[in-house]
């Protein structure tokens, strides 16, 4: 199978994967007690008004009819529906929140790669020192620590004494200001730079620091291990020995010959981490009030807003599918031995 066929094959599988996932989410949300209208209860709203609200959302129909309607809307009309109580199109929320999650994921990946690659290379370079042990313990701890706990530690330990912002993406005044600026892409950093508002950009970076560190540290352990193992493996190969024998400096051997060996596994890991990133983003965004898709889906579950949860999961699934496809394709570019 050539590369082109492989891409087409993977693309053809995506709707099938979405179907399975949406079915799962549909069932899971309905198994949970309560429905979107439950949030209105607890006040003395007349029963007939509540029944009418349920009917408006189609919740009075049998489950299989609701399911088929939903699939028809998503796959045929490409319509993710509206939120239950506010009746805002889910697409609006996703468009508003997706850039925040993408920004956070990119920043966290940069942090994770920075920490992971540095620690991995240092471990391989100073194989016989205490450092590899330290890196191993670090990797285990950060990988197993609950991400919200790490976030809370940073909030209390770093933010409170330093005055760094701990919640949201921007200070409230800048949020309103940003939305009134003429050039809009939805990406805050990009928008503030395009509109030449460096103060807003700095505010955004300050707000992003702790969430990105939290999520970045959380996934950096994996990168540390992968870099260490791959570089370490290369360091005992004949070609590195030959390089040393030619008098090339040890640092150059590590970075030039050893690290190159780590690129493919790192790329694979970065691809695989997208799912972990999005999962971790739910907790990170919740901890830091970072208004991305993760916080949206969390609130959606609490409010039993089926449309929000289903819509967000669809987008998540698409992102994971696309990124893993891109990683697959990138393999063949980085390593000419990879063939499909």
């Amino acid at each position, binding site marked *: 199978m050539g590369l082109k066929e492989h891409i087409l094959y993977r693309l053809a599988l995506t709707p099938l994967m979405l179907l399975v996932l949406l079915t799962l989410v549909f069932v899971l949300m309905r198994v949970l007690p309560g429905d979107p209208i439950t949030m209105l209860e607890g006040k003395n709203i007349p029963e007939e008004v509540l029944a009418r609200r349920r009917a408006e959302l189609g919740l009075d129909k049998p489950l299989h009819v609701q399911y088929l309607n939903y699939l028809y809307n998503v796959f045929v009309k490409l319509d993710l529906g509206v939120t239950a109580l*506010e009746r805002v199109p889910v697409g609006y929320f996703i468009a508003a929140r997706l850039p925040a999650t993408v920004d956070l994921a990119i920043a966290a990946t940069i942090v994770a790669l920075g920490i992971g690659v540095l620690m991995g290379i240092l471990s391989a370079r100073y194989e016989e020192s205490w450092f590899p042990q330290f890196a191993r313990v670090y990797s285990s701890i950060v990988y197993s620590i609950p991400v919200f706990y790490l976030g809370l530690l940073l909030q209390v330990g770093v933010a409170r004494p330093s005055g760094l912002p701990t919640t949201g993406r921007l200070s409230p005044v800048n949020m309103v200001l940003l939305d009134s600026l003429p050039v809009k892409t939805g990406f805050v950093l990009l928008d503030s730079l395009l509109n030449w508002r460096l103060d807003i950009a700095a505010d955004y970076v300050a707000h992003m620091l702790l969430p990105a560190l939290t999520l970045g540290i959380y996934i950096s352990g994996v990168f540390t291990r992968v870099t260490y193992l791959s570089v370490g493996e290369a360091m005992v190969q004949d070609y590195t020995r030959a390089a040393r024998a030619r008098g090339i400096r040890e640092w150059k051997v590590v970075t030039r010959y050893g690290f190159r060996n780590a690129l493919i596994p790192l790329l694979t890991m970065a691809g695989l981490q997208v799912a972990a990133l999005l999962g971790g983003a739910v907790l990170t965004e*919740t901890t830091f009030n970072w208004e991305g898709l993760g916080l949206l889906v969390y609130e959606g579950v609490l409010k039993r807003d089926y449309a929000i949860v289903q819509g967000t999961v669809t987008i998540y699934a698409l992102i994971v599918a696309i990124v893993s496809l891109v990683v697959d394709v990138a393999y063949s570019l980085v390593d000419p031995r990879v063939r499909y």
Partner: protein
Amino acid sequence: MKNPNTKVLIAAAVAAIAVIAIAAYMIFWQTSPETPPAAPPAAPKIKEALIIGTTDSVQSTLDPCEAYDYLGVNIIQNMGEGLFKYEPETAELVNALAVSYTISPDGMVWEIKIRTDAKFQDGTPLTAQAVVWSWNRTITLNQDPAFLIGDLIEKAEAVGDDTVRVYLKAPFEETYVKSLLATWVAFPVNPKTSPMEVVEPPGTLDMIGPYKLGSWKPGEYIELVENPNYYGEKPKTPRIIIRFYKDAQSLRLAVENGEVDIAFRTLSPADIKDLMEKSTLQVVAGPGIAPIRYMVFNLNKEPFNDKRVRQAIAYLIDREQIVNTVFMGKFAQPLYSLVPIGFLGHKDSFKERYGSKPDIEAARKLLTEAGFSEANPLRMELWYTPVRYTPAEPDIAALLKQQLEASGLIKVELKSADWATYRTLMREEKIACWLLGWYPDFLDPDNYVRPFYHSSANAWLHVHYENPEVDRLIDEQVLQPTEQRIRTLENIQDIAADDAPIIPLWQEGQFAVAQPNVKGIVLDYSQIFRYFLLYAEVQG
């Protein structure tokens, strides 16, 4: 392989720390609020925009015919007004868009003269026709809170441009009618621009009030800006930004680091106490009147179908311990009737009936009569929901368990669930004893007795309490003159205390935590947080 080179490691670590330190310095320098002013300090001026942080959210729309959550309604109350309103501080019901009114001798017809100088945001003058059209719109669209005027008004008509004639469904008592006409559902909206359907986010309607909607990003913030066409006093601060936070912890951090000017609803009692002691922030307290908390029994379920069991539980509850331990004695007060302290007709019926301190002997006697003993104790589940009310809910549940188990004849199992699950368990009648809270629809004692005790109105509660005598008294009190009404309300509370289908526990205080320079915070009986009175002085 070379030997480890500790110097290189240390150098790398130092370099990394230096880079982080420089980055952090740059960010602080860019964002630090304490950047010294270039010019010498000038006279203080009013801050152009105030930021209010809250854990509340707008749960549906900002259309007065549909909004039915605290924040949505409060925002509408800053963007509009009705024929009557509550005066700040005194919370007396006074004329707003009404100038005067007369009531027919049989109490069935009100003629209300309205202001002729009031204009909507687009400059359209207010007319009697607009008032009638708005009420009809609310009743026709029949959304969640429509019953507030739907159950009151039979018909309304305009008499000329400045008089509204209202035909009531019954000769209701005067204050009762005024309090309902002061609710947000009765606010006039501009007929020229308001559609005959619910207006969805991010929109609202053109009303007559100090503010109008500037912008609204659902789930993130709402911006209110001054309404230049408002007939009354201009708001002290031209722009208000309401910023939503997901929980009390985030809100506390935001007010602590100065990201918001005011945190209003809802910080935990422990956080408020901590901030009072350790920070320069000011804590403004208002009377805790409207929001009440209580315990409900499903009277169709054993053993709570036995009045003696409910009474025994009422004997065992120590409200003062809850208030002193969880609310530090400051943030709530014990409640001995569902009608809160400060409301017309309030009576401490539970205190009179069961005392203010736990009476273990009386409880044991009743439980023994009901067939329970040390060998065969009453085993019950007590349900609570951890997020919806106060963050201290689990502590309260634990205290209640301790109090009930002090009898030696009750074994309590604590159970909790998120709101959607909790409410479903209530509705499907899978739980028999649970904690709940109530925020009033309108400020009248009727709203604290009818939805709980009247058998035709308490289906939502799944309490199954039915007492024909109480039903009759509730129907009568809204038609009686004030003095007589007070006696009827007291009578209702006494009977309800004896039957004990619901046990009142405490009423919560209102608290705003604000930066030291914020002024104009008025928290009063009306429970309206008036943004138009707020301002902060900054060095110009």
